Every structure is written in C-alpha cells, then in structure tokens.
C-alpha cells in the first residue's frame, strides 16, 4: 500500500494560495526528496501532511487513512533549530519523548516504550552516546537524535525538514546512508532539502515543487533543464543546472541552432 498519498491538495496561508493541486505519493522502500526554492511551499506541504494546518481542498492519506495529529503514523523530524538543545536531558530521554503521544496522558513509559527507544537509538547508531546530554552533541549527532525520536513512535512514514542544512559533507554522507538504509528496511521517507547533490545521489525519487508539482521522477529521469529552470525560476546559464548534471551546453547549442 502507498505510505503517503496526497491528492489534489490546495493550501492557503493568510488568504494567499501556497499550494495548488499537489499530487504526491511515497511508497514503501522509497526515499523521496522534495526540492524547490524558498517559499515554494515545502514546509507547508509537510505541515499539511502532518495535519497541522487546514487544507483548502484535496486529501492526505497516510497508510490509507486521512492524516490527523496524534495518529502517530507519521514520524516528524523538524529542522534542528526547532528543538531546545539546552534542555538538560540525555539522548535516550529525548528519544523516549517521541513516544509521549503513544504512551498517553497520565501513564508512565513501559517496557515496550523503552524497547522501541533502544531500537530507534540503535538504528541511528547512537548507542554509545545514549546517556550523553543532548547539549553536548554535534550537529550530525543532533540530527540523528531527531530521527531516532521520530522512529521511536514506530511510524509508517518519516517526514524530514531539511536534515542536511548546516552539516558538513562527511556528516551529510553518513546521514544520507542512514536515510537510504531506513527506506530499505521498510520506513519510507519524504524529505525537503536544499542539498541538490545529496538529493540526486541518495533519493530514489525527486519531486520538484514550486507551489505545485513541476515534475517528479527518478533523479536520472529529470534531465530536462526546463523543469529545473521553472522550479527555481532561473535562467539557462545558472550554475545550478551544471550542479545537478543537466546538460545545458546541449540545450544552448540546440536553441542557437534553432535561431541560426
């Protein structure tokens, strides 16, 4: 079954249209990258999927059921600055907090909660640091804590908001491997990112978004520079096209041939 299916989603924020007619799906085993410029509506789309903002029309189905906060079918990994890292708790307590919704009001965490926490910590390979205060972690370790916290609720789908931002290349690579590993083990992921190279490399599928879905497909299929130019609002001379390996020289040659 499709882990996430978004049908014809329209979202307005403050009376202005932000998303229009967005169709999107994430299947088991997939790591899908959501790519677009600032203001394209990436984070809004994630929030709509989480059920945190009202949608104007359309439908968001997670594991076949309409999304609503508290269903716990979705694990959310926010941007790192959203988390209060100076809070005096250890890695495992931070991860356990991901199960708060599951444990329920007025109950204490039980054996199942601690087991899920330990598994989540092992999956992101933070076992050696489980007792360390979160304030003392590096950026990459913090990102892994957030992923583990989301995994602790045993979600059917992980949503990641710009997990690579502000991290150095080796750390990005490690995280990219972690994400592809999670996808292969059966937790599908949808992530927004500005790291185009990383996304081309790690993602099984990319969605180019700018208020609506401009294109989607395997990284190797997105060869048409027009798609990238429309998504990011850039000219055919933009270095971005070279960065993602879209052959601009050929296009330029073709267009000059056409005019000449």
């Amino acid at each position, binding site marked *: 079954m499709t882990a996430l299916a978004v049908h014809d989603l329209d979202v307005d924020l403050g009376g202005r249209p932000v998303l229009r007619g967005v169709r999107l799906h994430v299947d088991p085993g997939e790591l899908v990258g959501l790519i677009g410029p600032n203001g394209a509506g990436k984070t809004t789309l994630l929030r709509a999927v*989480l*059920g*945190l903002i009202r949608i104007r029309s359309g439908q968001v189905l997670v594991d076949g059921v309409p999304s*609503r*906060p*508290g*269903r*716990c079918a*979705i694990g*959310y990994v*926010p941007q790192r600055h*959203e*988390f*209060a890292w*100076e*809070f*005096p*708790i*250890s890695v495992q*307590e*931070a991860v356990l*907090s*991901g199960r*708060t*919704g*599951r*444990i329920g*009001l*007025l109950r*204490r*965490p039980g054996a199942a909660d601690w087991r899920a926490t330990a598994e989540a910590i092992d999956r992101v390979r933070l076992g*050696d*640091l489980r007792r360390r*205060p979160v*304030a*003392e972690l*590096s950026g*990459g*370790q913090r990102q892994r804590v957030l992923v583990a*916290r*989301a995994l602790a*609720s045993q979600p059917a789908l992980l949503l990641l908001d710009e997990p690579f931002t502000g991290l*150095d*290349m*080796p*750390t990005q*690579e*490690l995280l990219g491997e972690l994400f592809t590993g999670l996808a292969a083990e059966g937790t599908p992921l949808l992530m927004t990112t500005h790291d185009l*190279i990383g996304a*081309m*490399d790690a993602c099984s599928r990319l969605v180019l978004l700018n208020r609506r879905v401009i294109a989607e497909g395997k990284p190797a299929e997105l060869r048409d520079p027009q798609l990238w130019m429309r998504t990011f609002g850039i000219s055919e001379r933009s270095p971005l096209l070279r*960065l*993602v*390996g879209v052959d601009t020289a050929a296009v330029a040659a073709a267009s000059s041939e056409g005019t000449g």
Partner: protein
Amino acid sequence: MPITEFIADLFNPDLAFLPKALLIAVMSSVVCGVVGCYVVLRGMAFIGDAVAHAVFPGLAVAFVLQGSLVLGGAVAGIVTALLIAVFAQRRRIKEDSLIGVFFVAAFALGIVIISQAPGYAGSLQQFLFGSITGIPDRDLYTVGFTGLAILAVLFLLHKELVAVSLDRESARSVGLPVFWLDIVLYVLVTLAVVISLQTIGNILVLALLITPAAAARLLTDRLGVMMLLAPVIGGGSALVGLYLSWSYDLPVGGTVVLVATGVFLLAWVFAPRHGLLARRRREPAGEPHRESDGTPESQVTPVSAEVDERPMG
C-alpha cells in the same frame, strides 16, 4: 543569635506566628523551586514576573473585601494568564508585548483598588515586600494543599510538559494539546507565585521561581536531579533566610532572596561542569561541543577523496 535560640523561639507560644511563617516560606519555596525548573528551561522568566504583577489586583480586592488573599490573587493571576494565552494565539502582536500590556495594567488596577482601602500605605508595603506576621491559620492549609496540588499536576503531566518544552511543532504533530498544556503551566506558575506572596512579597517572588532553578541547572545536566535540587535550594534558602532575618531584624523576603542569590553565585563559580572554575580548567582541552567521540563525523575527509568516492551526476 545562636541557632538554639531561634529553635526556642520557634516553640515559644508567644511567637506562634514564627513557625507558621517558616512553614509557609519553606513550603512555597519548595513548590516554586520545582515549578521554576520549567520557567527557567523554557525561558519564561518574564511570564513569572508578569504573573507576580497580575495577582496584585486580586490581592487588593481580597484585602478590601477582607477575603482570602490566596484565593483573590489566584483568580486575578489565572484570569490574566488566560487572557494572554488567548490573545497570543493571534500572532499579530508577540507574546512578550502582550504580557507587557496586560500584566502591568493588572498591577496598575491593583494600586488603584488598594488606594481606596483604609490603611493603604502599610498594607501596600506588606504586599510588595512580604511579612511574617498576621498570617491566618487557614492560609497554612491553603498553601499546603495548593502546593501539593501543584506538585501532583506537575508529576502527572511531566512527560507531556517536557515534550512540549523540547519542540512544540513535534508535540503538536503527535496530537498533544499544546495550547492546554501551556495554560496548565501558566496556571501552575500563578498558583506558585500566589502561595509565596505572603512571606516573600510581590516584588521578590520572582526570585523564588528563578534563582533556585537556575542554580540547580548549573549543578546538573539531568532534569530529574535539577527538579530535586531546585526545591532543596529554595527550601534551604527560605530556612536560612528566615533565621537570619529573625536574628538580625532584617526584612524576611529580601533576606531569603539574598541567601538564594548567594547559592546561585556559588554554583556559578564552583559547579562541577558548568561552573567558572570547571570551565577554566577545561579550556586548554578544547571546545566542549567538539569532543572527539570516535564517530567519523569529526574527521573531515580530504576533498579529493570525497570526489573520488562519489562522482557527481
């Protein structure tokens, strides 16, 4: 005055107000210490200050009507806290500005009300700076039960309050009632402030919320330990402060706060990991956030190797 004499005074039936004041001061400091942990960790110090102002009109009304000060203060504080929470939902004006508007307005209202009562100047000073005399017996029970109720709610909602404090958006996404948890916390802060007003006074009560919790934060990196240390520091400061105040005829609120401040300064210098001395000692060893932990993240791969391994495109 030697301690033995202080203890003798505590059991002197002619000085019956003294043990009552001590009990109230210690109980309210303990409760404020625990609640204060959240206030400090969430950066809500301004809200604590504001609540202390907001309860003032309630106290004034209760004073004029000869009613229970604790009840009057609680009602006024909670009403104002709810107003803030509701107004803050529309993000046009930021929360701290709203607090600035409403809580100071409440304080102003309190001053206007109390100026209408006879014996205005003396009672005003009592409200603002605290007093150990004239505490009715029923206040002892009110403070005791309210304190227990506050601690019970904090205990029962601990993991929810932690989750919301860590990251509101994620808390919302797992279905926690973030708005209501905020309200609960505001109300608990208000109640903790109100039960402490009697001995410490309106101006100084903020110190009971912030100082012990801040000192405890310097001493530990574990939330559970912090929430035990803060009430111990608060209760201890109340005890020592009242003793000094009684011995040297000093104002009780000010003395208690100064003792707590002393503890905070000691912690700031001598705390095992975050203290001034510990940081000095560690400095040559390098920046604390970049401790090597054996994970490959801290090693930067040479650029050429990176390119070799991962051809672009």
